[in-house]
């Protein structure tokens, strides 16, 4: 609404919000037609749609009535965001349907990422019982235990978003695409990790060959 249209109007009518150019027009959603984008003042709900429940704690910005070059992210939304973390975690572990991290080496949550990962492989191979003379001790079965250890690796990726992106359809679409890109990239990395784990895992066949020297093959046959 143009302010010029109010010239000569009674004072009480001029007081009405949005009716005068002399009073800052807070509720106008077109910024007096000066914005070059469709960006508007985000509401709590707008923030909550993207950033989750923590948006409810946003306090009013005392500078909010000033003209903005850019929208600053409310302080309360900065930093770690468990709500968004859960969403992205879920997209990665449940929605990617990668056979590498579901069929071959399935995802498993572990809560001690900074510590050493240790695991043991126990082997209780069955073997033949042997004849035992009367009143003598029976042969003891062999068993083996191998201990392995490793560390988890910290990795990360980031995305860049236009300020106030959630207030325009293109911004939301861009956010959606970047989120998919992030999830896909992390799954891609995890798939790679599974490939590497599979090709670099110790060879049981080699172990067996080292343990049992000959399988009755000649050198020519081994070469083949």
């Amino acid at each position, binding site marked *: 609404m143009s302010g010029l249209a109010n010239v000569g109007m009674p004072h009480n009518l001029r007081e009405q919000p949005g009716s005068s150019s002399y009073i800052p027009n807070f509720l106008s959603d077109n910024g007096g037609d000066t914005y070059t984008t469709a960006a508007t003042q985000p509401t709590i709900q707008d923030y909550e749609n993207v950033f989750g429940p923590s948006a409810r704690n946003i306090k009013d910005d005392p500078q909010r009535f000033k003209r903005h*070059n850019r929208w600053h*992210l409310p302080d309360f939304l*900065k930093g*770690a*965001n468990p709500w*968004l*973390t859960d969403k*992205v*975690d879920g997209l990665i*572990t449940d929605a990617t349907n990668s056979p*590498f991290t579901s*069929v*071959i*080496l*399935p*995802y*498993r*949550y572990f*809560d001690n990422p*900074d510590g050493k*990962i240790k695991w043991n*492989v126990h082997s209780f*191979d*069955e073997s033949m019982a042997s004849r035992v003379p009367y009143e003598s001790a029976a042969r003891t079965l062999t068993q083996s235990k191998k201990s392995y250890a*490793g*560390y*988890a*690796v*910290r*990795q*990360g*990726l*980031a*995305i*860049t*978003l*236009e*300020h106030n*992106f959630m207030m325009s359809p293109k911004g939301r679409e861009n956010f959606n695409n970047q989120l998919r890109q*992030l999830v896909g990239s992390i799954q891609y*990395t*995890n798939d*790679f*990790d599974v*490939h*590497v784990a*599979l*090709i*670099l*895992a*110790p*060879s*049981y*066949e*080699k172990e067996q*060959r080292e343990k049992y020297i000959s399988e009755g093959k000649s*050198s020519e046959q*081994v*070469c*083949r």
Partner: protein
Amino acid sequence: MDLFGFLQKNQNALDILIEEVKYRFKQWMAPSPSFMLTNCKLTFALQMTPERTSYVLHGPDGVKRLKQGPEISSYRGLNIIHTRSFRLETGQSARDLLRRRVRVAEYYRILPSVTNFNKQFELYNEGRDGWFSLSMADLCKMARVPGGGLTARLQRFLDTPNQATFDAQIIGQIEFVIVRPNIEHNMLGVIIGSGGGDTGNTLWGQTELAVYDDSMHGVWGMSYKYHSRAIVYECKNLIRLWDIAYDSYNGGKDDKWVNWEDDDSVNKFKEDTMDVTQPYRGDSMMVMAFRPDANELNRNWPSPIVFYDDINQPARALVGADNTEKLDCEQFRVFDAVVYGPAYQIYYNLMPNFHELHYTRKDAGNSAHENETTSDVLAFEGSMRIKNEAGQIIREIEGSGHHGKDFTGVASVRAGKGYKITGVPQAIRQA
């Protein structure tokens, strides 16, 4: 080597491999395999061969299978999972970690004979998928060495290879050995195993998504960090079968030869050979000439031979894609014989250090991960045809090495574009 290019050499190869693996798992007392990780090209063999898609044999199902392509969810009780390709090197396209470059070697022996001047010796050129011929004059030119280290008579023979100049006795004493040490192909492998938590997990935790406001650049951002590690706990539950199918040919099996007399050629050959990070494009043939004593000549060589042989050291070689065994190769030595010794030593000194390449070679997993080639000091006998003056084939030696027999048309098979079909599918009555 039995598994090298196994898929293209045998019908029902994947079926045989899968059953062999199941049997091996039983021997190891491991759980039955549940998945097969493979490049999608290998499932062509399961879905798209004429035997599986023929209308005569399978009716509309055969045609449907052909249209479906290589996608197949399970086979012989295994989940078929196709590998992904990953972009690992800057500026290079994504690559499959079960595809790797492998060099193998072949040798061709031309025994001394008084009639050799009347023969043509044909070797297979995989780059052009055809045969090329070498005469005695060609071989002499290729075997010449600088500095006259060979015996005077042998050197003179190589310098002036003319039937009229030498009497039959001399001609009948000259032996040639051709080695192609760097025949390189891209080969595909598969991993068969029992998937699930008993075999391993992708451990995943301490994820965090942080939101930030970058006032410097006027943007917002989200940073996602996580800890992860894919681990195979129980290696008994999986088996890797490397190099079971050809995917493409790089080089090393053509008609280019190392000119021993030219330092640039020798140095270039050394450089190309020692560079294991790039597909091989260098010279193929090393030609050596000898004049062994007829009484001590061993006409039957083993296959393989140790073609790069430090005669002062015991011969041992790592064999198997995973370097599974260190083999005593004494019986494969041929150049330690007195009849070859002095002349061989001259060629040996001009060759790249194949020993170093072989002994420092990584196992298949590491070489695939780091995109490096593996190579060998053992050479198997390759295919060669000998023709008489009239152009008739008077002897054909069939290769017994990694590649088996060479023939025109096999290049496309070794490029991963087809399978060796040994017979036409027959219609049969099924009960």
